[in-house]
């Protein structure tokens, strides 16, 4: 299993702090996921972006380096196309009168948000449990 503490933590502390670091890493990951989901929801109606065209849904993907145990989170744009709506009066309408909307589906985002929140809570509970166990072990 990868070491989530990094090379700077002394060896005797690794066993004790390992579960805490693992849960903290899980919480940080879910927070980043929730931030990306919130950004998607906030831009669900953004029709123009600096890159041109409507907003493209973002996804956060965690990658773990097995050698160091470090987790990095990359952002990638969802390649799917948004829905086409016939609206000839819209300033962004094409020659046929269709407007391409952002590819953000609110229902999907809400489901993802609930899942991210659940996992964040689960990691927070695991962190509290590890803390309680560590404290109990120190009382022996």
């Amino acid at each position: 299993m990868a070491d989530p503490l990094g090379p700077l933590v002394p060896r005797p502390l690794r066993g004790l702090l390992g579960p805490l670091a693992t849960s903290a890493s899980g919480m940080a990951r879910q927070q980043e996921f929730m931030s990306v989901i919130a950004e998607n929801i906030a831009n669900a109606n953004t029709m123009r972006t600096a890159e041109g065209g409507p907003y493209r849904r973002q996804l956060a993907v965690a990658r773990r380096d097995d050698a160091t145990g470090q987790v990095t989170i990359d952002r990638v744009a969802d390649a799917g196309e948004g829905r086409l709506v016939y609206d000839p009066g819209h300033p962004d309408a094409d020659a046929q009168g269709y407007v391409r909307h952002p590819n953000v589906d609110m229902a999907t985002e809400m489901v993802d948000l609930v899942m991210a929140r659940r996992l964040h809570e689960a990691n927070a509970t695991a962190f509290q449990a590890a803390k309680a166990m560590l404290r109990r072990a120190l009382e022996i």
Partner: protein
Amino acid sequence: MIKALFGTGTAPWRLRGGLAELSATHTAIATRLADGSRASSASSFADALGEAAGTAIGEQELLTNMASLADTQLRFEATARLLQRAYADLRVTMRNG
């Protein structure tokens, strides 16, 4: 004499082993929860990202892991109390013996 008090097979030795085992179990559960999802979405696009799809934790698995976590914590607490009692008994024995 010392072996009879602290050696292999004695209560403190067994309880210490139990604590180490429960600690390892907790670490494994914490790792499973931390790796619960590798992408911010479980949609088909995220599935296409490969590794994200393979490790996503389901609702049922989440509940199972949380139940295991509570179970491990209670067992750890009970084992720690028993070990504390065993060490207290040993201290009394050494003081009065």
